[in-house]
Structure formats: structure tokens, C-alpha cells
């Protein structure tokens, strides 16, 4: 299964986070917010025109900007 950036995930599809690309600070910032390798998440909505993406992590939700979402790699859960 090939890893794709979170920005390319179709709406409402469950995906597993496989990699967070970036420096230590960035990775940690994502993890403490609940975006961690191995976690299963889904995209709630994408705002139009390269707007931010809202992600559901099983109960809690977070909005991340496009640039950050590109650095979160996921694979589709079968």
C-alpha cells in the first residue's frame, strides 16, 4: 500500500497515519495533538481553494493548514 499525503485523501475515508515529515518540533506538535503514527483518522472536510483540512481522530478533531497536511503521510485502511 502506497503512502499518500493527507491532502489527497477522499472525504470520509478512514486512513492510517504512517509518517509525519518534518523536524522534531513539528512532529511533536502533531503527536501531542493526537496525530500520531499508527492512528486511524478520517477527513471531515476540506475548505475550498487550498484551505485547511479538518481531521477526525475518533472523537476529537483538529484543523490543519494545507502545508502541514501535506507532510502527514497516510495509507487507506481496507
Amino acid at each position: 500500500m502506497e503512502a499518500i499525503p493527507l491532502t489527497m485523501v477522499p472525504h470520509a475515508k478512514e486512513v492510517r497515519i504512517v509518517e509525519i515529515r518534518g523536524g522534531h518540533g513539528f512532529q511533536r506538535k502533531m503527536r501531542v495533538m493526537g496525530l500520531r503514527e499508527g492512528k486511524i483518522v478520517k477527513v471531515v472536510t476540506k475548505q475550498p481553494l487550498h484551505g485547511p483540512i479538518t481531521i477526525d481522530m475518533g472523537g476529537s478533531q483538529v484543523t490543519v493548514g494545507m502545508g502541514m497536511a501535506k507532510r502527514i503521510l497516510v495509507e487507506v485502511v481496507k
Partner: protein
Amino acid sequence: MKRIVLMGNPNVGKSVVFSRLTGANVVTSNYPGTTVDFSKGKMRVGDKKVEIIDAPGTYSLEPSNKAEEVAVEMLASADVVINVVDATNLERNLFLTLELLERDIPTIIALNLWDETHHLGIEIDKEKLQEELDVPVVATVALSGEGIKELVTSLEKAKVSKKIEPMSEKERWIKIGEIIKKVEKVSHRHHTFRDKIADMTIKPSTGIPIAILIIFCAFWVVRFIGENLITYIFDPFFEEIYKPLLMHLNEWIGSGFIRDILIGKLVDGNIDFMESMGMLTTGLYVPFAAVLPYIMSFYFMLSILEDSGYLPRLATLVDNIFHKLGMHGHGIVPLFLGLGCNVPGALAARTLETRKQRFISSTLLAIAVPCMAQTAMIFGILGPYGLYYIVLVFLTLAIVYVTAGIILSKFVKGESPEIFLEIPPYRMPSIKAILKKTWMRIRWFLGDAIPWLIFGVFIVNILYSIGFLDWLGSALSPVMEKIFGLPGEASLALIIGFLRKDLAVGMLLPLKMKAMQLVIAATILTIYFPCVATFAVLVKELGIKDMLKATMIMIATAIMVGGTMKILLIGL
């Protein structure tokens, strides 16, 4: 035990716990050297009174922004920590908990939002969690007050955990996994009605119309509360009680310089709180009776929007636009508040993260956002000519806001980080917490902003009595005529506009201008400079140097926009 510090992730109901624990005597202040606000109060533990601090919410002790840095610094001064944990989100919250327990500070855990776990099909074994963490765990529902008593009585049992030792980040995640496995059971989670609303309000197709509706309603409520406070409380007080006292004082002082400064000039032999311009008349009336009521109703409404969980959704919906203006979604808050009164708008700019974002937000606010009072007057003077002219003013201002924002985001140095924020579930706000929050903010306003306001009026007053303002008025009148195509006397309105923009719009009426001239005058009046109240707050928030830059941008924009409008609307 002298000082208790409340620590926890954002959106876990920490401030509700805080307001449950403290009495009326709470203050919100600014952490020295930052734009981060925090609250402090007193509470009774046994027979002693101890200080309790509500630290800013943080996800970890390795701070990623200023607010989190402040939280970490506050931790250092704590004798006891109450770690407020969101029981519906235990896994994520435990990261901070472990970090806290790794430090040798006596800690107690408030497992908040306990009632919600039942609806969500989450089962937590509290005893086991207590055993695993080796510190007391108390289940609480801060909203209803459940468990708060137990939390207070258990405070003395707060202890340093012997089971949690310092570890690496990776080890911490593993540990969290182990703990969760032992203490938490999650059965299937139903898609509730609340989830549906949550989805609807964040998806653009439904979210944007709902946002417009909510903003509209919020405005209506703010205006309603503000106007009624003025009509039934503040105005009667000033007119019926305060004015007779001042009139006595006026007779006692007699005429002269002191009277000019304190009382100002009389209008038809009487004090006119809007026009007398004395320190004790207009100087007190403007901040207390004209601005304060709106501040109260604004803060009330803002607290509701905050505590219900709506603001992060609104920020998500508008992030796109605001990102292009050099801010991010949160930039809507100062704009939104500013449309009511620029003062709370200017204060709200501090919630943005970087200097660049705050500078852009404040400058745009001062340039292109008319306050409610001014908007009402613009409707008043242009209404008779038709809606078209009113639309022209607001359309111009909107274009200026966006254009200036795009330009500023290119030229202002500094960073404008992307949006990254938690979208909490909707929660019923607690009336008690809202009133307390509103009160704390008002108190902060009274202590921090009002002295500046009075000082501003004082300066204007001096400039007025030495004739500087009249001189400036006549010096500016050629500018009015040549660049803006307005009668020279309109310059006086600009000068009065520094004190009260709505009043200044009214002063345009006797000048017998054409509709297009009124459009230009009303637009320039919004752009050229903020009112003295906003100006004072901005100087304080941005610092003199940045405020001077902002002022230059404002004046330049006013000249460019006014000149362009004259050419387009009236001709050369």
C-alpha cells in the same frame, strides 16, 4: 501549600473548574513581557487561603508557542498542581499528565467531563488509573459542580508520583498505550445529533450560511444589550445623578482655565456630555457610558461563542481568506469584534500568534472597520439618498481591507504560521463561567484601558484649548477641497472624529454636500485614523514604533482611497 496551578490541555473545561474553585476575587492580567492573559484567584483549603492560577492551556511541557511557554513558567512556581484532564480524550491528555508527573511536584488529577464519557460509550476505571499514575484521581463535572467538593478535600492528598519516572517521548507514548489498555474500554460510538451539527457547521456548503446567521444574531444581541445598558443604566446615571453634581462644581469653580479643562464648554448653558470636552464631562462619559456598555455586551457574547466551541469552526471556515491577508482564521475575531466597537477588536488582536499577524490585524481594523456607532450614523446620513450609496461606502471599505491586507502580508516582516487548532465538541456553556469570564475581562478593561482613554481625552482637550485643533482644521481644509473634492469645513469633522467617529459623521450633515461627497467623506472618516479610545489601546498593544508605522499607513491609505474615489465618483 501557597500556590496551586491548574494545568491541562486547551478545551478541557479548565476555566470552568477554575471558576468553580475560586470566589469572586479573581483577576485576569497580562503575563509580563507577553500578550498572554491568565487568571488568578484565591481559594480556601482547610482553614487557609491559597492562591490559585489558571495557566494557559498546553498540550505538552515542551512549548510550541508563547502561551505554552507561560504555562511552563507558571508550573515552576507551583506548590501543588491540579491537572485537569478531559475524560473523553484520555489518551491525548495523558501525555501532559505524564510529563507533569515526571517532575517532582505534588499533583492531583481532575478527570473532567466525566458525565460525557457515559454518552460516548467510554468506560474508565478510575481506581486503576489512580493506581497506575500513583496520584489521586477525582472525577469531576465542572459544569454542574459535581466532584468539585471532593477535589477540594482531596487537595491535601496531592502527592509526587513514585511510579512515573522521567522518560523519553517514545517511552511516554508506549506507557500511555499500556495505561489506556488497562483503564479504558470504548464501546461503539454512535453518531449523535451533536456530531451532525458539528459536521454541518464546519462544512463550507452548510457552514458558511450558518456562520453568517450566527454572526448576524451575535451582532443583534450585542447591540440589544449595549443599547439597553446605555438607555436604562448609564445615561440615566450620568444625566440624572452625575450632571447636577457637575453643575454645582461648575458654579463653584467659575470660569477660567481650570473650568475649561475639567468641565469644558457649556452648550446652551448646560453640560453636554458629547460636546463639552472636559475631563470630568466628555472625558468620563465617552469611556464609561459610550464604550463600556458595548464592551460588556461584546465580552459576554464572545465568551459564549468561545465556551460553546463555535469559534474554532468559524476560524476554519474563513482561514482561507485570512491566510491571504497575512493572518490565519483566528483573524476573524478582531474584525468581528471591531465591527461593534474597535476597542475590543484592538484588544482581541493579541490572541494572534506572531507580531506580524497582530500588526496586520490591528492596522486593518483601524483602517477599514467602522464601529457600530459609526455604521449607524452612515446609514443615517446616506439612507435618504438610497441604499446604493451605503453599499458604495461598505464595498469600498471591504476592498480596502482585502487589498491592504494582501499588500501588508507581502511587506510586513515576520512569520504568519498556518492554522493548527483543535476543534472541540460543542458544549453547553456554563452561565457561571461565562459571567465570571466576562467580569474578569471587564475588570481588566477598566484597569488597563480606561486610564489610557482618559489620558487620550486629556491630550485632545489640551490641544483643543490651546487652539491647535482649530489651526489644524484650517490647515487641512485645502487638502479637503483639492484632493477629496469636499468643502474645507469637513476638516473639522475629521478632527472631531478622533474623539467620536459617529459624532463626526453627523457633523457632515450641515455642510450641504452632494450624495457622492458624503460617500467620500464617510469613507475617509473611517480610514484616516481610529478614534482616541482605539488609538490609545493600539499604542499600548503594538508599542509606539509600530503604531507610528500603522498611523502612516492609515493616512496614506486615506489619501489614496479618497483621491481615487473623488476621480471615480465625481470626476477631476
